């Protein structure tokens, strides 16, 4: 592999747009982020952000629970041979397309139920980008930086790590 090739994804998960299956995605994300080297409290934040993003896909992209798929990809970010510098999480749906500019957080000054999901995603994640996929549906790309206080102990996040 060349240095420029992106790291392969750790895991791809496909669930129905059904709240009953959110817990499967959360546990898969928990293990994947731990393996990628995120600290426990950061892992909790990422799990929450992914849950909020999936909840929004079910409610807004698909207009409610259905059998249509949501695809979640997790991949390390950074030069091929080095430890991952960040974790990239992609969430892909095949539902309604909206202008990404309309997906935004409300003001938190007013206390009322709801309207917190996008704010949570943007607070937890270091980069958040929505886009319409030409073939249909939307894609949300979230990046979380991995802080490594002890860089000497870190090892490559690519597959060479485990053997």
């Amino acid at each position, binding site marked *: 592999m060349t240095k420029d090739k992106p790291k392969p994804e750790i895991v791809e998960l496909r669930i129905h747009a059904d*709240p*009953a299956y*959110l*817990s499967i995605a*959360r546990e898969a994300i928990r293990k994947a982020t731990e393996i990628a080297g995120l600290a426990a*409290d950061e892992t*909790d*934040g990422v*799990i*929450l952000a992914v*849950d*909020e993003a999936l*909840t929004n896909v*079910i*409610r807004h992209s698909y207009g409610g629970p259905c059998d249509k798929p949501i695809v979640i990809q997790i991949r390390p970010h950074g030069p091929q041979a080095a430890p991952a510098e960040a974790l990239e999480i992609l969430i892909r749906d095949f539902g309604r397309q909206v202008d990404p500019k309309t997906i935004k957080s409300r003001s*938190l000054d007013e*206390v*009322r*139920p*709801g309207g*917190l*999901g996008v*704010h*949570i995603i943007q*607070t*937890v994640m270091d980069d958040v980008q929505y886009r319409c996929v030409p073939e249909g549906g939307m894609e949300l790309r979230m990046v979380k930086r991995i802080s490594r206080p002890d860089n000497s102990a870190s090892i490559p996040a690519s597959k060479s790590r485990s053997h």
Partner: protein
Amino acid sequence: MRHRHTNDSDNDVVRAIRRQDKAVVLELAGEIDLHRSVKLRERLLDLTAERPDMIVINLSEVSFMDSSGLATLVEALQLCRRNGGALKLVGIQERVRSILEISRLDHIFPIFDSESEAMAS
């Protein structure tokens, strides 16, 4: 602790409801997400309709809560206050507290370490 199968009672995050004088203590458990918050909302709306002086929500067994769960708590808080009552949270785990902080709702809810402290305040 694990579910035998996903029937209504298993999906219910309300583990127990206890009544003490004019206070109602609600023990919640598990993961409060979009799947579970629907049921929680129904139970909370029923409870607030009784207009108790105080609802104490014990979250010590709650390991996860997302904004759909938080929304039901905010709604119940506002209904309680409108009726002249109080809603208090106790036993919040660290990972659940962080969503309150991120949402800047940690100062909106009265939060206590234990049920007795909540009842006494």
